[in-house]
Protein backbone atom coordinates (compact mmCIF):
# COMPACT_ATOMS: atom_id res chain seq x y z
CA UNK A 1 0.00 0.00 0.00
CA UNK A 2 2.91 2.38 -0.38
CA UNK A 3 1.83 3.77 -3.75
CA UNK A 4 -1.74 4.65 -2.82
CA UNK A 5 -1.44 7.45 -0.24
CA UNK A 6 0.48 9.60 -2.72
CA UNK A 7 -2.32 9.51 -5.25
CA UNK A 8 -5.06 10.39 -2.78
CA UNK A 9 -3.12 12.95 -0.81
CA UNK A 10 -4.59 16.33 -0.03
CA UNK A 11 -2.95 18.11 -2.93
CA UNK A 12 -4.24 15.67 -5.51
CA UNK A 13 -7.73 15.70 -4.03
CA UNK A 14 -7.86 19.49 -4.27
CA UNK A 15 -6.49 19.42 -7.77
CA UNK A 16 -9.00 16.79 -8.83
CA UNK A 17 -11.95 18.65 -7.27
CA UNK A 18 -10.84 21.81 -8.98
CA UNK A 19 -10.49 20.20 -12.38
CA UNK A 20 -13.93 18.70 -11.98
CA UNK A 21 -15.31 22.14 -11.06
CA UNK A 22 -13.74 23.88 -14.04
CA UNK A 23 -15.05 21.16 -16.35
CA UNK A 24 -18.59 21.42 -14.88
CA UNK A 25 -18.57 25.20 -15.27
CA UNK A 26 -17.43 24.93 -18.87
CA UNK A 27 -19.98 22.25 -19.67
CA UNK A 28 -22.79 24.22 -18.01
CA UNK A 29 -21.94 27.31 -20.06
CA UNK A 30 -21.76 25.28 -23.26
CA UNK A 31 -25.10 23.61 -22.48
CA UNK A 32 -26.74 26.96 -21.73
CA UNK A 33 -25.35 28.51 -24.90
CA UNK A 34 -26.44 25.52 -27.01
CA UNK A 35 -30.02 25.73 -25.74
CA UNK A 36 -30.20 29.46 -26.29
CA UNK A 37 -28.59 29.15 -29.72
CA UNK A 38 -31.16 26.48 -30.59
CA UNK A 39 -33.95 28.92 -29.75
CA UNK A 40 -32.41 31.67 -31.87
CA UNK A 41 -31.79 29.20 -34.69
CA UNK A 42 -35.38 27.97 -34.91
CA UNK A 43 -36.61 31.54 -34.57
CA UNK A 44 -34.43 32.69 -37.48
CA UNK A 45 -35.16 29.65 -39.66
CA UNK A 46 -38.93 29.61 -39.18
CA UNK A 47 -39.17 33.39 -39.03
CA UNK A 48 -37.23 34.19 -42.19
CA UNK A 49 -38.92 31.26 -43.92
CA UNK A 50 -42.28 32.92 -43.33
CA UNK A 51 -41.20 36.50 -43.90
CA UNK A 52 -42.20 38.13 -47.19
CA UNK A 53 -43.45 41.44 -48.50
CA UNK A 54 -47.09 40.50 -47.84
CA UNK A 55 -46.34 40.36 -44.11
CA UNK A 56 -45.87 44.14 -44.18
CA UNK A 57 -48.48 45.11 -46.76
CA UNK A 58 -51.54 42.99 -45.95
CA UNK A 59 -53.77 42.63 -42.94
CA UNK A 60 -54.20 39.47 -40.86
CA UNK A 61 -56.05 36.86 -42.93
CA UNK A 62 -58.96 34.59 -42.03
CA UNK A 63 -57.92 30.94 -41.69
CA UNK A 64 -56.72 29.61 -45.03
CA UNK A 65 -56.59 33.05 -46.60
CA UNK A 66 -53.56 35.02 -47.75
CA UNK A 67 -52.44 37.92 -45.65
CA UNK A 68 -49.82 39.55 -43.51
CA UNK A 69 -49.41 41.38 -40.25
CA UNK A 70 -49.71 45.02 -41.35
CA UNK A 71 -52.54 45.90 -38.96
CA UNK A 72 -50.84 44.10 -36.07
CA UNK A 73 -47.49 45.81 -36.68
CA UNK A 74 -49.07 49.27 -36.91
CA UNK A 75 -51.25 48.54 -33.89
CA UNK A 76 -48.26 47.46 -31.83
CA UNK A 77 -46.36 50.60 -32.80
CA UNK A 78 -49.35 52.77 -31.89
CA UNK A 79 -49.76 50.99 -28.52
CA UNK A 80 -46.06 51.25 -27.67
CA UNK A 81 -45.74 54.89 -28.72
CA UNK A 82 -48.85 55.83 -26.75
CA UNK A 83 -47.57 53.92 -23.72
CA UNK A 84 -44.12 55.50 -23.99
CA UNK A 85 -45.51 59.04 -24.08
CA UNK A 86 -47.30 58.42 -20.78
CA UNK A 87 -44.47 56.37 -19.27
CA UNK A 88 -41.69 58.85 -20.14
CA UNK A 89 -43.58 61.76 -18.59
CA UNK A 90 -44.54 59.74 -15.51
CA UNK A 91 -41.14 58.08 -15.13
CA UNK A 92 -38.98 61.18 -15.53
CA UNK A 93 -41.11 63.23 -13.13
CA UNK A 94 -41.25 60.45 -10.52
CA UNK A 95 -37.52 59.79 -10.84
CA UNK A 96 -36.83 63.51 -10.48
CA UNK A 97 -38.97 63.65 -7.36
CA UNK A 98 -37.09 60.73 -5.81
CA UNK A 99 -33.66 62.20 -6.61
CA UNK A 100 -34.21 65.93 -6.11
CA UNK A 101 -37.31 66.67 -4.05
CA UNK A 102 -37.87 63.77 -1.69
CA UNK A 103 -36.43 64.27 1.77
CA UNK A 104 -35.58 60.59 2.15
CA UNK A 105 -38.49 60.22 4.52
CA UNK A 106 -40.68 57.14 4.87
CA UNK A 107 -42.81 58.26 1.94
CA UNK A 108 -39.85 58.44 -0.44
CA UNK A 109 -38.61 55.08 0.78
CA UNK A 110 -42.05 53.54 0.23
CA UNK A 111 -42.30 54.96 -3.29
CA UNK A 112 -38.84 53.66 -4.17
CA UNK A 113 -39.59 50.23 -2.75
CA UNK A 114 -42.95 50.00 -4.52
CA UNK A 115 -41.33 51.10 -7.76
CA UNK A 116 -38.71 48.36 -7.38
CA UNK A 117 -41.41 45.74 -6.80
CA UNK A 118 -43.47 47.09 -9.70
CA UNK A 119 -40.38 46.67 -11.91
CA UNK A 120 -40.68 42.90 -11.76
CA UNK A 121 -44.34 42.43 -10.82
CA UNK A 122 -46.25 39.90 -12.97
CA UNK A 123 -47.41 41.80 -16.04
CA UNK A 124 -50.67 39.85 -16.18
CA UNK A 125 -51.72 41.44 -12.88
CA UNK A 126 -51.14 44.88 -14.37
CA UNK A 127 -53.45 43.75 -17.17
CA UNK A 128 -56.14 42.72 -14.66
CA UNK A 129 -55.81 46.06 -12.87
CA UNK A 130 -56.22 48.07 -16.07
CA UNK A 131 -59.18 45.87 -17.04
CA UNK A 132 -60.87 46.90 -13.81
CA UNK A 133 -60.13 50.63 -14.14
CA UNK A 134 -60.33 51.20 -17.90
CA UNK A 135 -62.15 48.36 -19.65
CA UNK A 136 -65.02 47.58 -17.29
CA UNK A 137 -66.14 51.22 -16.81
CA UNK A 138 -66.07 51.90 -20.58
CA UNK A 139 -67.64 48.50 -21.41
CA UNK A 140 -65.14 47.93 -24.20
CA UNK A 141 -61.63 46.66 -24.76
CA UNK A 142 -59.67 49.57 -26.17
CA UNK A 143 -56.33 50.80 -27.51
CA UNK A 144 -56.38 53.32 -24.71
CA UNK A 145 -56.54 50.60 -22.03
CA UNK A 146 -53.75 48.61 -23.69
CA UNK A 147 -51.50 51.68 -23.79
CA UNK A 148 -52.17 52.38 -20.10
CA UNK A 149 -51.26 48.81 -19.18
CA UNK A 150 -47.99 48.99 -21.13
CA UNK A 151 -47.25 52.43 -19.65
CA UNK A 152 -47.57 51.02 -16.13
CA UNK A 153 -44.95 48.40 -17.02
CA UNK A 154 -42.57 50.88 -18.67
CA UNK A 155 -42.81 53.73 -16.15
CA UNK A 156 -41.01 52.00 -13.22
CA UNK A 157 -38.02 51.25 -15.47
CA UNK A 158 -37.74 54.91 -16.49
CA UNK A 159 -38.27 56.09 -12.91
CA UNK A 160 -35.47 53.86 -11.74
CA UNK A 161 -32.93 54.92 -14.37
CA UNK A 162 -33.85 58.61 -14.09
CA UNK A 163 -33.30 58.57 -10.33
CA UNK A 164 -30.02 56.66 -10.67
CA UNK A 165 -28.65 58.98 -13.36
CA UNK A 166 -29.70 62.16 -11.56
CA UNK A 167 -27.94 60.96 -8.42
CA UNK A 168 -24.76 60.56 -10.44
CA UNK A 169 -24.77 64.24 -11.46
CA UNK A 170 -22.18 66.25 -9.53
CA UNK A 171 -23.34 68.60 -6.80
CA UNK A 172 -21.46 71.43 -8.48
CA UNK A 173 -23.96 71.41 -11.36
CA UNK A 174 -26.77 72.16 -8.91
CA UNK A 175 -24.71 74.80 -7.13
CA UNK A 176 -23.90 76.45 -10.46
CA UNK A 177 -27.60 76.75 -11.22
CA UNK A 178 -28.40 78.13 -7.78
CA UNK A 179 -25.43 80.48 -8.02
CA UNK A 180 -26.98 82.08 -11.08
CA UNK A 181 -30.19 82.59 -9.15
CA UNK A 182 -32.08 80.04 -11.21
CA UNK A 183 -35.23 78.53 -9.69
CA UNK A 184 -34.80 74.90 -8.71
CA UNK A 185 -37.17 73.57 -11.35
CA UNK A 186 -35.39 75.51 -14.10
CA UNK A 187 -32.07 74.16 -12.84
CA UNK A 188 -33.48 70.66 -13.03
CA UNK A 189 -34.99 71.17 -16.45
CA UNK A 190 -32.19 73.11 -18.14
CA UNK A 191 -29.09 71.74 -16.42
CA UNK A 192 -29.66 68.41 -14.68
CA UNK A 193 -31.99 66.81 -17.23
CA UNK A 194 -29.71 67.96 -20.03
CA UNK A 195 -26.59 66.46 -18.51
CA UNK A 196 -28.49 63.28 -17.59
CA UNK A 197 -30.19 62.98 -21.00
CA UNK A 198 -28.07 60.06 -22.18
CA UNK A 199 -28.90 57.93 -19.18
CA UNK A 200 -32.58 58.80 -19.28
CA UNK A 201 -32.68 57.90 -22.98
CA UNK A 202 -31.09 54.55 -22.17
CA UNK A 203 -33.79 53.88 -19.59
CA UNK A 204 -36.53 54.83 -22.03
CA UNK A 205 -35.11 52.55 -24.72
CA UNK A 206 -34.87 49.63 -22.28
CA UNK A 207 -38.47 50.24 -21.25
CA UNK A 208 -39.51 50.34 -24.91
CA UNK A 209 -37.75 47.04 -25.56
CA UNK A 210 -39.47 45.50 -22.57
CA UNK A 211 -43.02 46.49 -23.52
CA UNK A 212 -42.70 45.74 -27.23
CA UNK A 213 -42.90 42.01 -26.50
CA UNK A 214 -45.34 42.09 -23.59
CA UNK A 215 -48.35 39.90 -24.30
CA UNK A 216 -50.07 39.10 -21.03
CA UNK A 217 -51.23 42.63 -20.14
CA UNK A 218 -52.73 43.13 -23.61
CA UNK A 219 -54.90 39.99 -23.54
CA UNK A 220 -57.76 41.71 -21.77
CA UNK A 221 -57.04 45.40 -22.28
CA UNK A 222 -56.50 46.05 -25.98
CA UNK A 223 -57.58 42.50 -26.90
CA UNK A 224 -56.98 41.98 -30.63
CA UNK A 225 -58.62 42.98 -33.87
CA UNK A 226 -58.67 41.11 -37.13
CA UNK A 227 -59.00 44.33 -39.07
CA UNK A 228 -57.09 47.56 -39.42
CA UNK A 229 -58.18 50.12 -36.87
CA UNK A 230 -56.71 53.20 -35.25
CA UNK A 231 -59.74 53.90 -33.08
CA UNK A 232 -58.50 54.58 -29.55
CA UNK A 233 -61.72 53.32 -27.96
CA UNK A 234 -61.94 50.05 -29.90
CA UNK A 235 -59.88 46.85 -29.65
CA UNK A 236 -56.74 47.12 -31.74
CA UNK A 237 -54.68 44.49 -33.56
CA UNK A 238 -51.22 44.00 -32.07
CA UNK A 239 -48.31 41.65 -32.68
CA UNK A 240 -48.01 39.81 -29.33
CA UNK A 241 -51.67 38.80 -29.05
CA UNK A 242 -51.80 37.96 -32.78
CA UNK A 243 -48.77 35.70 -32.32
CA UNK A 244 -50.44 34.07 -29.31
CA UNK A 245 -53.70 33.41 -31.19
CA UNK A 246 -52.05 32.30 -34.43
CA UNK A 247 -49.45 30.06 -32.78
CA UNK A 248 -52.14 28.16 -30.85
CA UNK A 249 -54.33 27.77 -33.94
CA UNK A 250 -54.47 24.63 -36.04
CA UNK A 251 -53.77 26.40 -39.36
CA UNK A 252 -50.36 26.20 -40.99
CA UNK A 253 -50.41 29.64 -42.58
CA UNK A 254 -51.41 31.24 -39.28
CA UNK A 255 -48.53 29.49 -37.52
CA UNK A 256 -46.13 30.75 -40.20
CA UNK A 257 -47.35 34.30 -39.60
CA UNK A 258 -46.83 33.77 -35.87
CA UNK A 259 -43.18 32.85 -36.46
CA UNK A 260 -42.73 35.90 -38.72
CA UNK A 261 -44.24 38.10 -35.98
CA UNK A 262 -42.07 36.55 -33.28
CA UNK A 263 -38.99 37.18 -35.42
CA UNK A 264 -39.98 40.82 -35.94
CA UNK A 265 -40.44 41.34 -32.19
CA UNK A 266 -37.18 39.58 -31.33
CA UNK A 267 -35.25 41.59 -33.93
CA UNK A 268 -36.63 44.89 -32.67
CA UNK A 269 -35.97 43.99 -29.02
CA UNK A 270 -32.41 42.79 -29.76
CA UNK A 271 -31.88 45.86 -31.97
CA UNK A 272 -32.95 48.30 -29.26
CA UNK A 273 -30.86 46.53 -26.61
CA UNK A 274 -27.80 46.59 -28.89
CA UNK A 275 -28.40 50.29 -29.57
CA UNK A 276 -28.48 50.90 -25.81
CA UNK A 277 -25.11 49.15 -25.44
CA UNK A 278 -23.56 51.16 -28.27
CA UNK A 279 -24.94 54.41 -26.85
CA UNK A 280 -23.77 53.77 -23.30
CA UNK A 281 -20.35 52.56 -24.49
CA UNK A 282 -19.97 55.81 -26.43
CA UNK A 283 -21.13 57.79 -23.39
CA UNK A 284 -18.38 56.24 -21.26
CA UNK A 285 -15.63 56.82 -23.80
Amino acid sequence: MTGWPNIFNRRNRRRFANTLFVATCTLATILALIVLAAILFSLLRNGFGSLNLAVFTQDTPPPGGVGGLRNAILGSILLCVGAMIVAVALGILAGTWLAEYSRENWYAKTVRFVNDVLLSAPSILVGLFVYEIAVRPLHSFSTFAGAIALALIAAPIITRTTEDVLRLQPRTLREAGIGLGTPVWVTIRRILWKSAAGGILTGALLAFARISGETAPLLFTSLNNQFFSLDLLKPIANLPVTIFTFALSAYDDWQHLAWAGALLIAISVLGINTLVRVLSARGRA
Partner: protein
Amino acid sequence: MANTSATGALLPYAHKRARGAGFESFFHYACWGAATTLLCAMAGICVLLAVGGWPAISTFGLSFFTSTVWNPVTDVYGGAGPILGTLITSVIALLVALPLAFLTAVFLTEFCPHRLRRPIGIAVELLAGIPSIVYGMWGLFVFAPLFAIYIEAPVMAWAAPGTIWERLFSGIPNGSGVLTASIILAIMILPFIAATLRELFLTIPPRVREAAYGVGCTPLETVWSVTLPYVRRSAIGAVMLGLGRALGETMAVTFVIGNSHHLPRGLFDSGATISSTIANEFAEATSAMHISALLALGFVLFLITFVVLALARALLGHGHTA
Protein backbone atom coordinates in the same frame (compact mmCIF):
# COMPACT_ATOMS: atom_id res chain seq x y z
CA MET B 1 -29.22 55.12 1.86
CA ALA B 2 -27.50 58.48 1.65
CA ASN B 3 -29.32 61.48 3.08
CA THR B 4 -30.28 64.58 1.15
CA SER B 5 -27.28 66.76 1.76
CA ALA B 6 -24.82 64.02 0.90
CA THR B 7 -26.38 63.47 -2.52
CA GLY B 8 -26.35 67.21 -3.18
CA ALA B 9 -30.08 67.67 -3.75
CA LEU B 10 -31.39 71.16 -4.13
CA LEU B 11 -33.80 71.44 -1.25
CA PRO B 12 -31.76 73.74 0.99
CA TYR B 13 -32.10 76.39 -1.73
CA ALA B 14 -35.77 75.87 -2.50
CA HIS B 15 -36.98 78.99 -0.70
CA LYS B 16 -35.02 81.39 -2.96
CA ARG B 17 -37.26 83.28 -5.39
CA ALA B 18 -36.42 84.35 -8.94
CA ARG B 19 -37.97 84.67 -12.39
CA GLY B 20 -39.99 81.59 -13.22
CA ALA B 21 -40.08 80.72 -9.56
CA GLY B 22 -43.89 80.80 -9.70
CA PHE B 23 -43.85 77.44 -11.45
CA GLU B 24 -41.60 75.99 -8.82
CA SER B 25 -44.36 74.62 -6.63
CA PHE B 26 -46.32 73.46 -9.67
CA PHE B 27 -43.32 71.48 -10.90
CA HIS B 28 -42.68 70.14 -7.42
CA TYR B 29 -46.27 68.91 -7.18
CA ALA B 30 -46.12 67.42 -10.68
CA CYS B 31 -43.09 65.37 -9.68
CA TRP B 32 -44.72 64.38 -6.40
CA GLY B 33 -47.89 63.46 -8.28
CA ALA B 34 -45.99 61.19 -10.66
CA ALA B 35 -44.33 59.38 -7.78
CA THR B 36 -47.66 59.05 -6.01
CA THR B 37 -49.28 57.67 -9.19
CA LEU B 38 -46.86 54.76 -9.11
CA LEU B 39 -47.69 54.13 -5.47
CA CYS B 40 -51.41 54.29 -6.24
CA ALA B 41 -50.98 51.83 -9.13
CA MET B 42 -49.46 49.29 -6.78
CA ALA B 43 -52.08 49.89 -4.10
CA GLY B 44 -54.77 49.77 -6.81
CA ILE B 45 -53.60 46.39 -8.06
CA CYS B 46 -53.74 44.99 -4.55
CA VAL B 47 -57.09 46.52 -3.58
CA LEU B 48 -58.94 45.84 -6.86
CA LEU B 49 -57.79 42.21 -6.94
CA ALA B 50 -58.81 41.73 -3.30
CA VAL B 51 -62.20 43.42 -3.75
CA GLY B 52 -62.86 41.70 -7.08
CA GLY B 53 -61.89 38.32 -5.70
CA TRP B 54 -63.78 38.65 -2.44
CA PRO B 55 -67.13 37.21 -3.68
CA ALA B 56 -65.38 33.99 -4.76
CA ILE B 57 -63.33 33.65 -1.59
CA SER B 58 -66.28 34.38 0.70
CA THR B 59 -68.57 31.99 -1.22
CA PHE B 60 -66.22 29.04 -1.35
CA GLY B 61 -64.27 29.84 1.79
CA LEU B 62 -61.30 27.67 2.51
CA SER B 63 -62.28 25.23 -0.23
CA PHE B 64 -61.24 27.86 -2.78
CA PHE B 65 -57.67 27.07 -1.75
CA THR B 66 -58.02 23.33 -1.15
CA SER B 67 -60.53 22.12 -3.72
CA THR B 68 -59.41 21.18 -7.23
CA VAL B 69 -62.88 21.42 -8.77
CA TRP B 70 -62.85 24.29 -11.27
CA ASN B 71 -66.07 24.17 -13.19
CA PRO B 72 -67.36 27.25 -15.04
CA VAL B 73 -70.51 25.34 -16.07
CA THR B 74 -71.75 24.73 -12.53
CA ASP B 75 -70.04 27.91 -11.29
CA VAL B 76 -67.99 26.08 -8.67
CA TYR B 77 -64.39 27.16 -8.31
CA GLY B 78 -61.50 25.70 -6.34
CA GLY B 79 -58.06 27.04 -7.14
CA ALA B 80 -55.77 24.41 -5.65
CA GLY B 81 -54.75 23.12 -9.11
CA PRO B 82 -53.50 26.45 -10.51
CA ILE B 83 -52.00 27.58 -7.18
CA LEU B 84 -50.03 24.36 -6.72
CA GLY B 85 -49.17 24.36 -10.44
CA THR B 86 -47.63 27.82 -10.09
CA LEU B 87 -45.52 26.79 -7.11
CA ILE B 88 -44.44 23.43 -8.58
CA THR B 89 -43.40 24.78 -12.00
CA SER B 90 -41.53 27.73 -10.48
CA VAL B 91 -39.65 25.61 -7.97
CA ILE B 92 -38.65 22.99 -10.57
CA ALA B 93 -37.64 25.79 -12.95
CA LEU B 94 -35.45 27.32 -10.26
CA LEU B 95 -33.89 23.95 -9.37
CA VAL B 96 -32.96 23.44 -13.03
CA ALA B 97 -31.89 27.00 -13.84
CA LEU B 98 -30.00 27.95 -10.69
CA PRO B 99 -27.07 25.49 -10.90
CA LEU B 100 -26.63 26.14 -14.61
CA ALA B 101 -26.82 29.91 -14.16
CA PHE B 102 -24.41 29.87 -11.23
CA LEU B 103 -21.86 27.71 -13.06
CA THR B 104 -22.19 29.87 -16.18
CA ALA B 105 -21.65 33.05 -14.19
CA VAL B 106 -18.57 31.51 -12.49
CA PHE B 107 -17.23 30.36 -15.85
CA LEU B 108 -17.64 33.84 -17.32
CA THR B 109 -15.88 35.59 -14.43
CA GLU B 110 -13.17 33.02 -13.63
CA PHE B 111 -12.30 30.58 -16.39
CA CYS B 112 -13.47 32.01 -19.69
CA PRO B 113 -10.69 33.00 -22.12
CA HIS B 114 -10.51 36.79 -22.10
CA ARG B 115 -11.29 37.10 -25.75
CA LEU B 116 -14.65 35.32 -25.33
CA ARG B 117 -15.60 36.92 -22.04
CA ARG B 118 -17.26 40.05 -23.38
CA PRO B 119 -19.08 38.46 -26.34
CA ILE B 120 -20.57 35.64 -24.26
CA GLY B 121 -21.45 38.02 -21.44
CA ILE B 122 -23.23 40.35 -23.84
CA ALA B 123 -25.00 37.42 -25.53
CA VAL B 124 -26.32 36.21 -22.17
CA GLU B 125 -27.56 39.71 -21.31
CA LEU B 126 -29.26 40.16 -24.68
CA LEU B 127 -30.96 36.77 -24.34
CA ALA B 128 -32.31 37.84 -20.95
CA GLY B 129 -34.27 40.53 -22.81
CA ILE B 130 -36.02 38.29 -25.34
CA PRO B 131 -39.81 38.40 -24.85
CA SER B 132 -41.22 35.34 -23.12
CA ILE B 133 -43.67 34.65 -25.94
CA VAL B 134 -40.68 33.63 -28.11
CA TYR B 135 -39.65 31.06 -25.48
CA GLY B 136 -43.25 29.84 -25.34
CA MET B 137 -43.48 29.40 -29.12
CA TRP B 138 -40.18 27.55 -29.20
CA GLY B 139 -41.42 25.31 -26.41
CA LEU B 140 -44.64 24.52 -28.26
CA PHE B 141 -43.27 23.93 -31.76
CA VAL B 142 -39.72 22.68 -31.24
CA PHE B 143 -39.13 21.48 -27.70
CA ALA B 144 -42.40 19.69 -26.85
CA PRO B 145 -42.41 17.28 -29.86
CA LEU B 146 -38.76 16.32 -29.25
CA PHE B 147 -39.38 16.01 -25.51
CA ALA B 148 -42.32 13.67 -26.10
CA ILE B 149 -40.35 11.33 -28.37
CA TYR B 150 -36.93 11.32 -26.74
CA ILE B 151 -37.69 11.80 -23.04
CA GLU B 152 -41.30 11.16 -22.09
CA ALA B 153 -41.94 7.96 -24.04
CA PRO B 154 -38.68 6.20 -23.02
CA VAL B 155 -38.96 7.30 -19.39
CA MET B 156 -42.56 6.10 -19.13
CA ALA B 157 -41.61 2.81 -20.74
CA TRP B 158 -38.75 2.47 -18.26
CA ALA B 159 -40.74 3.29 -15.13
CA ALA B 160 -41.96 -0.06 -13.85
CA PRO B 161 -45.64 -0.24 -12.89
CA GLY B 162 -46.27 0.01 -9.18
CA THR B 163 -43.05 1.88 -8.37
CA ILE B 164 -42.78 5.47 -7.24
CA TRP B 165 -41.30 6.29 -10.66
CA GLU B 166 -44.49 5.30 -12.39
CA ARG B 167 -46.43 7.72 -10.20
CA LEU B 168 -43.88 10.49 -10.68
CA PHE B 169 -43.84 10.20 -14.46
CA SER B 170 -47.50 9.47 -15.11
CA GLY B 171 -49.36 11.51 -17.68
CA ILE B 172 -49.83 11.58 -21.41
CA PRO B 173 -46.59 11.61 -23.40
CA ASN B 174 -47.70 14.34 -25.81
CA GLY B 175 -44.92 16.77 -24.96
CA SER B 176 -46.92 19.31 -23.01
CA GLY B 177 -47.25 19.15 -19.25
CA VAL B 178 -45.89 20.34 -15.95
CA LEU B 179 -42.29 19.28 -16.54
CA THR B 180 -42.18 20.79 -20.04
CA ALA B 181 -43.48 24.09 -18.70
CA SER B 182 -40.92 24.01 -15.89
CA ILE B 183 -38.06 23.41 -18.32
CA ILE B 184 -39.18 26.23 -20.64
CA LEU B 185 -39.43 28.51 -17.58
CA ALA B 186 -35.95 27.43 -16.52
CA ILE B 187 -34.55 28.25 -19.96
CA MET B 188 -36.24 31.64 -19.78
CA ILE B 189 -34.92 32.65 -16.35
CA LEU B 190 -31.47 31.11 -16.94
CA PRO B 191 -29.94 34.08 -18.83
CA PHE B 192 -31.57 36.48 -16.37
CA ILE B 193 -30.10 34.83 -13.27
CA ALA B 194 -26.74 34.23 -14.98
CA ALA B 195 -26.47 37.88 -16.07
CA THR B 196 -27.38 39.17 -12.59
CA LEU B 197 -24.97 36.80 -10.82
CA ARG B 198 -22.19 37.71 -13.25
CA GLU B 199 -22.80 41.38 -12.59
CA LEU B 200 -22.57 40.65 -8.85
CA PHE B 201 -19.31 38.71 -9.21
CA LEU B 202 -17.84 41.61 -11.18
CA THR B 203 -18.48 43.99 -8.27
CA ILE B 204 -16.06 42.04 -6.05
CA PRO B 205 -12.78 43.96 -5.75
CA PRO B 206 -10.03 42.08 -7.63
CA ARG B 207 -7.75 42.09 -4.57
CA VAL B 208 -10.23 39.96 -2.61
CA ARG B 209 -9.89 37.23 -5.21
CA GLU B 210 -6.16 37.84 -5.56
CA ALA B 211 -5.71 37.44 -1.82
CA ALA B 212 -7.38 34.03 -1.98
CA TYR B 213 -5.17 32.91 -4.84
CA GLY B 214 -2.20 34.41 -3.00
CA VAL B 215 -2.62 32.05 -0.03
CA GLY B 216 -2.75 29.12 -2.45
CA CYS B 217 -6.47 28.50 -2.97
CA THR B 218 -7.57 26.64 -6.07
CA PRO B 219 -10.23 28.41 -8.18
CA LEU B 220 -12.87 26.11 -6.66
CA GLU B 221 -11.86 27.08 -3.13
CA THR B 222 -11.70 30.76 -4.11
CA VAL B 223 -15.22 30.71 -5.54
CA TRP B 224 -16.69 28.61 -2.75
CA SER B 225 -15.03 30.18 0.29
CA VAL B 226 -14.26 33.73 -0.79
CA THR B 227 -16.22 35.14 -3.74
CA LEU B 228 -19.55 33.44 -3.04
CA PRO B 229 -19.70 34.44 0.65
CA TYR B 230 -18.71 37.98 -0.41
CA VAL B 231 -21.92 38.38 -2.45
CA ARG B 232 -24.11 35.82 -0.66
CA ARG B 233 -26.83 38.24 0.37
CA SER B 234 -27.22 39.87 -3.02
CA ALA B 235 -26.92 36.51 -4.76
CA ILE B 236 -29.90 35.16 -2.81
CA GLY B 237 -31.74 38.36 -3.75
CA ALA B 238 -30.93 37.80 -7.43
CA VAL B 239 -32.21 34.23 -7.23
CA MET B 240 -35.43 35.39 -5.56
CA LEU B 241 -35.87 37.92 -8.36
CA GLY B 242 -35.57 35.04 -10.83
CA LEU B 243 -38.13 33.08 -8.81
CA GLY B 244 -40.45 36.09 -8.91
CA ARG B 245 -40.18 36.11 -12.69
CA ALA B 246 -40.98 32.42 -12.91
CA LEU B 247 -43.99 32.75 -10.60
CA GLY B 248 -45.62 35.52 -12.61
CA GLU B 249 -44.64 34.36 -16.08
CA THR B 250 -47.60 33.86 -18.37
CA MET B 251 -46.74 33.31 -22.01
CA ALA B 252 -43.85 30.86 -21.69
CA VAL B 253 -46.09 28.60 -19.60
CA THR B 254 -49.48 28.92 -21.26
CA PHE B 255 -48.19 27.43 -24.52
CA VAL B 256 -46.88 24.19 -23.04
CA ILE B 257 -48.55 23.30 -19.75
CA GLY B 258 -51.65 21.72 -21.26
CA ASN B 259 -54.12 23.88 -19.33
CA SER B 260 -56.25 21.58 -17.21
CA HIS B 261 -57.43 22.48 -13.75
CA HIS B 262 -57.09 19.20 -11.92
CA LEU B 263 -54.13 18.52 -9.69
CA PRO B 264 -51.32 17.18 -11.91
CA ARG B 265 -50.96 13.44 -11.28
CA GLY B 266 -47.33 13.36 -12.38
CA LEU B 267 -44.60 15.41 -14.00
CA PHE B 268 -45.76 14.59 -17.54
CA ASP B 269 -49.40 15.34 -16.77
CA SER B 270 -51.06 18.52 -17.93
CA GLY B 271 -51.73 21.25 -15.41
CA ALA B 272 -52.23 24.98 -15.10
CA THR B 273 -50.69 27.94 -13.35
CA ILE B 274 -52.50 30.97 -11.98
CA SER B 275 -51.31 33.19 -14.80
CA SER B 276 -52.08 30.67 -17.54
CA THR B 277 -55.60 30.20 -16.14
CA ILE B 278 -56.20 33.94 -16.12
CA ALA B 279 -54.73 34.34 -19.61
CA ASN B 280 -56.91 31.58 -21.03
CA GLU B 281 -60.21 32.35 -19.37
CA PHE B 282 -60.46 35.98 -18.34
CA ALA B 283 -61.45 37.50 -21.69
CA GLU B 284 -64.14 34.83 -22.17
CA ALA B 285 -65.47 34.64 -18.61
CA THR B 286 -69.13 35.65 -18.55
CA SER B 287 -70.52 34.77 -15.13
CA ALA B 288 -69.71 37.20 -12.33
CA MET B 289 -68.49 34.37 -10.10
CA HIS B 290 -66.07 33.12 -12.77
CA ILE B 291 -64.53 36.59 -13.10
CA SER B 292 -64.39 36.90 -9.32
CA ALA B 293 -62.67 33.51 -9.00
CA LEU B 294 -60.05 34.56 -11.57
CA LEU B 295 -59.46 37.84 -9.74
CA ALA B 296 -59.11 35.91 -6.48
CA LEU B 297 -56.46 33.73 -8.14
CA GLY B 298 -54.77 36.95 -9.28
CA PHE B 299 -54.81 38.16 -5.69
CA VAL B 300 -53.13 34.96 -4.51
CA LEU B 301 -50.47 35.40 -7.20
CA PHE B 302 -50.04 39.01 -6.13
CA LEU B 303 -49.46 38.00 -2.51
CA ILE B 304 -46.96 35.26 -3.42
CA THR B 305 -44.93 37.43 -5.81
CA PHE B 306 -45.08 40.46 -3.55
CA VAL B 307 -43.50 38.52 -0.69
CA VAL B 308 -40.83 37.03 -2.96
CA LEU B 309 -40.01 40.33 -4.68
CA ALA B 310 -40.00 42.29 -1.43
CA LEU B 311 -37.53 39.78 0.04
CA ALA B 312 -35.43 39.99 -3.11
CA ARG B 313 -35.32 43.77 -2.99
CA ALA B 314 -34.51 43.82 0.70
CA LEU B 315 -31.59 41.44 0.08
CA LEU B 316 -30.36 43.14 -3.09
CA GLY B 317 -30.53 46.70 -1.82
CA HIS B 318 -31.12 49.52 -4.26
CA GLY B 319 -27.95 49.07 -6.25
CA HIS B 320 -29.08 46.69 -8.98
CA THR B 321 -31.14 47.66 -11.97
CA ALA B 322 -31.97 44.11 -13.05
